[in-house]
């Protein structure tokens, strides 16, 4: 039997459709009561333009699957972290040529300034560790741009957040 969680979790992300909202960790909860289904999602970045589409997609998929009275809630706290991307999400990112994020920094106290070039992840195309970040921002806020010094290919990486 297909549960509401299965249906909601299968919703593709509009920006990274090779991943589902569950893979990305933006699906926070699916609660089923006699009154209906309540889905809770959280944005990756404040300016994420895809939230209304994700909300509509989740609702639509649940309704098509026969679940009535669907409510989609947004939850801002705690803020999304790239650490919430699942192992399956990491695998799908790498398969799509996007380097998965490194673990986000855990800290107490003031956020330190980073003045040098940060570590660059291994090339998702050829596996070489000799890569360099070329830009801190890419086509979406959640990614940075890199280049592999061995195979010469440019690639994107999901930023640690």
């Amino acid at each position, binding site marked *: 039997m297909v549960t509401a969680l299965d249906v909601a979790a299968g919703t593709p992300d509009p920006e990274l459709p090779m991943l589902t909202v569950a893979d990305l960790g933006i699906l926070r909860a699916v609660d089923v009561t006699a009154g209906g289904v309540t889905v809770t999602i959280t944005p990756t970045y404040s300016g994420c333009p895809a939230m209304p589409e994700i*909300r509509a997609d989740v609702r639509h998929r649940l309704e098509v699957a026969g679940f009535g009275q669907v409510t989609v*809630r947004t939850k801002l706290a*705690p803020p999304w972290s790239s650490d919430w991307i699942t192992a399956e999400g990491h695998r799908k990112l790498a398969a799509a040529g996007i380097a998965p994020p490194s673990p986000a920094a855990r800290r107490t106290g003031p956020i330190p*300034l980073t003045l040098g070039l940060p570590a660059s992840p291994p090339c998702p195309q050829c596996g070489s560790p000799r890569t360099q970040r070329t830009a801190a921002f890419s086509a*979406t806020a959640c990614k940075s741009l890199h280049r592999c010094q061995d195979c010469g290919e440019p690639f994107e990486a999901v930023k640690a957040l």
Partner: protein
Amino acid sequence: MSTDNPYDLLGEDHDDGHRWAFGTGFTDPLEGIDTSVPDGLDAGALARYCLALGDDALIYSHRLQQWVTRMPELEEETAIANIALDLLGQARMLLARAGGILGQTEDELAFFRAEQDFRNVRLAEHEDRDFAELAGRLLIFSTWRLALFEQLPAAPDPVLAAIAAKGAKELTYHRDYAAQWVIRLGDGTALSHERMQNALTTLWPLAGELFRPDPDALAHVEPAAVDAVLDTVLATAGLDRPDAAPLAGVSDRTGRDGVHTEAMGYVLAELQSQARAYPDATW
């Protein structure tokens, strides 16, 4: 269906009422969030404070958007567009927080207020005359805003606290980006050094307003905390800290009181004219 092209998944059904393309019909960015004001908190003061922080982000974002298509390299183009988008996202949530208390939508607040009703600091409306001013201004603004957003998660309003906790992660990237460019320009050629130093001289008088006492504020930024970061960057860049008095207000009233520089009218004309000419437009 085939999943060879994952983008096909987005178009797998197109029933009535189902859409995936972006457009108008933006929903409240705080939809589904408990926006009741906690007991004991002055709702009016909270609305004013959220409006001020939202206006900073809205106007600053617009200034950055004006650079798009004019940046020296594609990588900087995407950086500035992304920073502008982050700030616009923060602005939308903060204006929605204020508007929920004031009984107005975020669009009404953004597009149908007059200049004297905007509460942004004058630093946010400054027109960058070159890339050095862009980098220097972003360094000052993001260093101050990050210091504030690091404090605000302890604020008594859970919505503002959550917006700040999220925004702080974004501002960390903005500050690093700006700091790295200030260093590259300051520690670059004689010409880039001169222009970076000139930019700081121009911008410094606008920084003082960030630290004016605000009776509505729900967190406090120590000027020394901001100075420590700025001094580190300037020292690394080989730049001098300008010795400039803060830009005076009018009868001591500044941006937070709705008294702006000449630049503000031009920003609003561009930001608001479309919405005012076609109030019900959709696309």
